[in-house]
Each structure stands twice: as C-alpha cells, then as structure tokens.
C-alpha cells in the first residue's frame, strides 16, 4: 500500500497550524492502513520548515524551487499530479484551508480520484476509508465512505484536533521539481494585509460579540450600551461584519482575528467552527442564543437560552446597578 502523503502548508515562511494538526491524525490512519506518513513541502528555501516537519519522526519530501515562492493553485496541482503518478500514495491529505480548497477539487477532477472535503475525523476499517464531516450549521455529521480507489484525496479541517508534540527525528529528501517553467495564466501579485481599525480586539480584556441574531443595525445601540457598562469592546461574527453592522477588522474567526479576552460575551452567534476557532482562547465565555442546539454552547461557561433582545437590556441595567 502507498503512503499517506500530507501536504505541509506554509505561508510567508511559517508553517500553518493545520500542518502540525494533521500529524495527530495521519499517523493513526497510517497504523490502521498498515502504511507510513510522508510529509510534502512545496516552496522555496524550505530547509527550516522541513526540519520542523521531520521532527514528527517522518520522512519529508521537499520540492524546493524559487518557482514556488508563493502559493499558486495551478502549480501545486501540477506537482501533486506528477507525485501521485510517481509515488502512488494511498492518501493525499491537505488542510481544508484557503490553499487546500483552491486546488484539491481540481486535482480530484483531473486525476479522476475521490475527494472528501472538510474532514474532522478519519477511520480505516474493513478495507474502507471513512471520513466524517459536518453539515447543516454543524448540527449533523455525515460519514462518507470512499469507494476503493488508487488514491484517496481529502482536506482536513484546521482546528479540529490538537497538534501533537514533535520531538522525534525523521529524514528530509529533496525531489526534482516537476515544474520546469512558470505558468502564465495565473500569477501571484501580492499580499494585502488586513485593514487596521481603531480598536485592536486581539488585545481586549472584555469583548461583547454579536452575530446574525442582531438582525439589523438599528439594534446596535443595545449592544453598545452593554459594552459601555462593562468597558468592553465590540466584535462580531462573519455574519455581522458581512452585513456591515460591525467593522471588518473586528471580525472574530478563521478569516478574521483570533482573540483571547478574559471575558467573551457572544450574543446571537450560533458558533460555526470558523467562529469558535477564533474565540476558543477566551478565558470565560458567556453565550446568549435562542437556539438550544447552537454549537456556541459547547464552548460556553455560562449559557442563556433566550432571545437576546429580551435579556440584554436587563443585563445592562443590572450590571450598571451592581457596579455602581
């Protein structure tokens, strides 16, 4: 059986968390499948990063060429397409990230291989690889079984598992780049940093955050009153920033900021995993949501199942009273 090939993702010289996290999942799967984990790095000047991945006690293959200085979906697809033919891996695993989702579906179509995206757990039993993923706002799990194939493709969700320690020694092997010249039809231009706002919510002690449940921006004063009463900064979920209620630089979540306040009060936020990934570093979490099934309650310390519009005004009043 072929190896489990894990694409170690990196950006601007730094390995992404998901690269480490997959090292918690891939070795277990390798054991079930009776094979080994091999990491793959595609980039330029990869020596340091290769050492870090090898510390998981695995072989690291490196395609190191200035052509790969910046991520390019088409180039990654080309490299993996060639490596699938050459190495015949049993599994190719990448992060379910802005990189993984940008080329894995195209690779699956090109190579006529099965793909399961956004996987949160994996199991190989009785000769079948099964991948679990979430549906319907995270309220249902789906078990997807792969039909037998030469190579299984999957993208693994960032933040789904904890990264293990890396203290073993592995090996690094450089591969010839399968790509000899640059591609002209898709070009990397530049990175544009996120806009900086008036408040840096990553430094806030107390955050009150609102989501889709706010319904419209004329309800904002309710939240501003509460924030003022407890000297909190205001943040929002993706729904709240997309709607324009909250400035984009105050978005909490995967595509926004990761925050770690002492107190995080989430109101009208259902708690999609992308949001939870951005606020699980909070010390104490209060969640107010009218849906008892809302995933936000899984990370809450104090929970109120109710309509935020009925609870928040009284909460503000009481807090003002108690704090004098």
């Amino acid at each position, binding site marked *: 059986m072929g190896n489990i090939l894990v694409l170690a993702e990196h950006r601007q010289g730094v390995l992404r968390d998901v690269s480490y996290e997959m090292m918690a999942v891939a070795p277990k799967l390798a054991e079930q499948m009776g094979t080994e984990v091999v990491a793959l790095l595609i980039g330029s000047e990869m020596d340091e990063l290769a050492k870090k991945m090898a510390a998981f006690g695995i072989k690291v293959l490196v395609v190191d060429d200035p052509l790969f200085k910046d991520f390019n979906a088409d180039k990654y697809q080309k490299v993996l397409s060639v490596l699938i033919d050459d190495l015949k891996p049993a599994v190719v695993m990448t992060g379910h990230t802005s990189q993984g989702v940008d080329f894995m*579906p195209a690779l699956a179509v090109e190579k006529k291989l099965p793909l399961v995206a956004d996987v949160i757990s994996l199991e190989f039993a009785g000769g079948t690889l099964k991948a679990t993923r979430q549906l319907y706002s995270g309220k249902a799990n789906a078990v*997807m079984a792969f039909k037998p194939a030469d190579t299984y493709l999957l993208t693994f969700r960032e933040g789904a598992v904890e990264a293990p320690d890396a203290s073993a020694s592995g090996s690094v092997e450089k591969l010839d780049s399968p790509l000899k010249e640059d591609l002209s039809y898709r070009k990397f231009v530049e*990175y544009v940093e996120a806009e900086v706002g008036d408040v840096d919510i990553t430094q806030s002690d107390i955050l009150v955050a609102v989501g889709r449940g706010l319904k419209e921006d004329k309800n904002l004063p309710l939240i501003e009153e509460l924030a003022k009463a407890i000297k909190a900064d205001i943040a929002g979920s993706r729904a709240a920033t997309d709607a324009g209620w909250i400035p984009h630089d105050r978005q909490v979540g995967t595509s926004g900021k990761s925050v770690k306040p002492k107190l995080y009060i989430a109101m009208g936020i259902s708690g999609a995993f992308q949001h939870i990934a951005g606020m699980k570093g909070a010390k104490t979490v209060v969640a107010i949501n009218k849906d008892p099934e809302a995933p936000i*309650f899984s990370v809450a310390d*104090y929970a109120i199942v109710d309509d935020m519009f009925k609870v928040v005004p009284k909460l503000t009043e009481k807090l003002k009273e108690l704090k004098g």
Partner: protein
Amino acid sequence: MKMFVCIKYVPDTSEAEVKVNPDGVSVDSSRFSFDINDADNYAVEESVLIKEASEGDVTVLSIGPKQSDVMIRMAMAKGCDRAVRIEDERIAVYDPLMVAKVLAGAIKGQEFDLVLTGCMANDDWHMSTGVALAEELGVNHASMVKKVEVLDGKKVKAYRELEGGLMEVVEVELPAVLTIQTGINEPRYAPIRGIREAQKKELKLASLDDLGLDAATVNADASMVVLEQLYIPEVISSAEFIEGEPDEKAAKLASILVKGGLV
C-alpha cells in the same frame, strides 16, 4: 462580458432543529425555510455589478426543485438575463464532483468569460464545486474571492481572502471561474420593476437528457464516495445554563459576572 452564475437553494438551519430521517442518510427538511445560499447571493450581485460596468450578460444556473424558481426569478429581478434550472433526481447531489460535472454540462459549448459561484454552500460546506467546475471546463480559477477587478476584458485581478484577514491578490486570465466569498459587495434588493421584468425572462427547465449528459456519469454509481450515515452529534456542553424568565436570567448573569470579578 458573458457570464454564468451558479446558485443553490439551501435550508436555513442556523436556528432550526435538525433531525435525521429514518433512512439515516437524509434530514427532515419539512420545517426548514429555504432561500438562496449566502455566498451565491453575493455572486449574483457581483455578476450584475460586472454586467452593469461592461454591458455583460448573465445566465443563472441552478440544480434544484420547482420551489427554487422563486429564488431564480429573484436573481433575474436583480439583473440576470435568463436562467436554466436543472432538475433530475439521478444526480448524486451530495458529491460536489458530480454537481460540478452537471454544471459543466450545462455550460460547455457556449462562450463565456466568467463563471461565478458562491465559495461555500451553507448546507454542506464542501467549498469544492466551483474549483471542480473550473477543471471540468478546462479554465482558470480563483477561490474565496472578496474583490474583483476586471482588467482590459482579458484578465481579472482577484483578491482571495486567506486566514487571518490577509488577502492574496492574483491575476487570472479569462475565461475563468471565480468562487465568491460573502461580504464582497452589498447585495441589492430587487427593484419592483425588475421583479415584473423577471417574469418575462426565460427560465428553462432541463433534465440530464436535455443537457446531453449520461446519467451514468453523475449518479450515485459514478460518485466515488458514499454518504453512509448522517447522525446528530452530541453537543457536549459544560456550561452552567442559567434558568428563569428573561429578566431573572439577566439578573443572575449580572450577579455571576460581578461577583466573579469578571467585569
């Protein structure tokens, strides 16, 4: 600029209870409210914005039931020119690779500059259909796009939203597929006149046979994955649930926060 925009009719489950049917592979959707997928709504708006700036033309594509005609008419009321709704129960809709093949079948043979899709469907979260569609069509793509600039009609500059709010700017030669991220624009409300005009626009219904597609290439047998089981995961919460009337809950919470020195 000749465009296609692919949209999906999805249930809003953000505040709904989700129950698995006895068959174990579908959910009871009888009480869900359905509408256009979030990201697709932004894709429709972006297609109309590009059309208005370049005298373009937009065809809506959707795979879905008769009820979704309302959503499709709304996209046409906002400015899309015509639509094709594909309905065929043989399509393995749980596999985005099969969905992409069907959409490609509906586009192939026609000229286009851009295909826009939402970058993710709210119901199944794959984020795979648009990128797979690009490969089926043999054209370029960029995913998770939060800003588009059309350059000279031959290229677009696409701003991809990465983790942490960083943007990756790429230039992509046309024709191309762009998967659109929410927040890229402010989707308009359909004007009354548009709603009237949309009734007169063409909405064609197509089966796989109409598209010249062999069902055996996009059905459950063709799919290389099987949806084996759906189940409701246990929400493990160690939270202290505060009970009572809304006022009581608020008072109790205030007291906990103050006494605990949290505020």
